[in-house]
């Protein structure tokens, strides 16, 4: 026997998501109209302001997916699994942004859309891995088994992240060295650095808003599944 679910909640605008998009729009405006282009790279250098923050958010998202999965293995709290699922999905979106914006910088600067360089290849592997993570989740109906397998895959996938960051030092790569996360300090003029950090803030804010929205969706879905199965 199944129990009837509650009536649909009243839908209100997601103000946090709208605010996050407004901040991203402000970062775009600053990058496009209020930040000078680079002397040698020209306007293509502005791709850095969406490429690097997207990479940061993807790494953050997958790192938190792994952390939530690890905690789930001990605590078995469904909220952790829902967070891991949400963070991984948003991470794949930002990882896709990295893989789209990177070649658009590579073509004018390197003369090639893609090179099988360690950093690029590992980033592509990371994308495939977390795409597989989402496919795996969709293929397992049992909630506990799904959370367990996903937690292990998330942990193994996130292990790639330090290698991706260090790949430019470990291997002879074509990818530029970090302009901020390095031992020499910030390698760009203040006007560019301000835009760079503002874009990092904007994309991180957007990550929080997207995960919150996706988490709410997962919570509603699970509640509906529970009521359909008569578990409530």
């Amino acid at each position, binding site marked *: 026997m199944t129990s009837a679910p*509650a009536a649909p909640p009243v839908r209100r605008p997601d103000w946090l998501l709208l605010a996050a998009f407004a901040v991203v729009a402000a970062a775009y405006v600053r990058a496009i109209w209020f930040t000078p282009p680079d002397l040698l790279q020209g*306007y293509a250098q502005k*791709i850095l302001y969406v490429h690097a923050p997207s990479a940061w958010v993807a790494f953050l998202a997958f790192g938190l997916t792994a952390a939530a999965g690890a905690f789930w293995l001990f605590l078995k709290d469904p909220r952790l699994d829902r967070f891991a699922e949400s963070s991984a999905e948003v991470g794949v979106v930002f990882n896709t942004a990295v893989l789209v914006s990177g070649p658009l*910088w590579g073509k004018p600067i390197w003369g090639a859309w893609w090179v099988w360089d360690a950093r690029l290849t590992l980033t592509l592997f990371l994308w495939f891995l977390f795409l597989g993570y989402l496919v795996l989740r969709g293929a397992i109906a049992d909630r506990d088994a799904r959370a367990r397998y996903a937690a292990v895959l998330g942990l193994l996938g996130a292990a790639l992240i330090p290698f991706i960051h260090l790949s430019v030092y470990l291997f002879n790569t074509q990818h530029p060295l970090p302009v901020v996360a390095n031992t020499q300090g910030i390698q760009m003029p203040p*006007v560019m650095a301000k835009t760079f950090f503002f874009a990092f803030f904007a994309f991180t804010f957007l990550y929080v808003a997207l995960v919150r929205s996706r988490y709410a969706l997962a919570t509603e*879905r699970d509640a509906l599944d529970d009521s359909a199965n008569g578990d409530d």
Partner: protein
Amino acid sequence: MPSTIRPTGTTEQMPDNAIYYQWAYGAVLALLLGYVLTLVLRRRALDRRRRAATR
């Protein structure tokens, strides 16, 4: 070689490659908005499922 980014130069000295960053900015924005659209559609699908269950 350190990847130092240099300050702006004159437009005459710079390569004409603005189209690449315009495409990159457009593609990233389209990707993010597209993802939000999937969230909206999935939410509507949940509402439909809930309504069907209450009937």
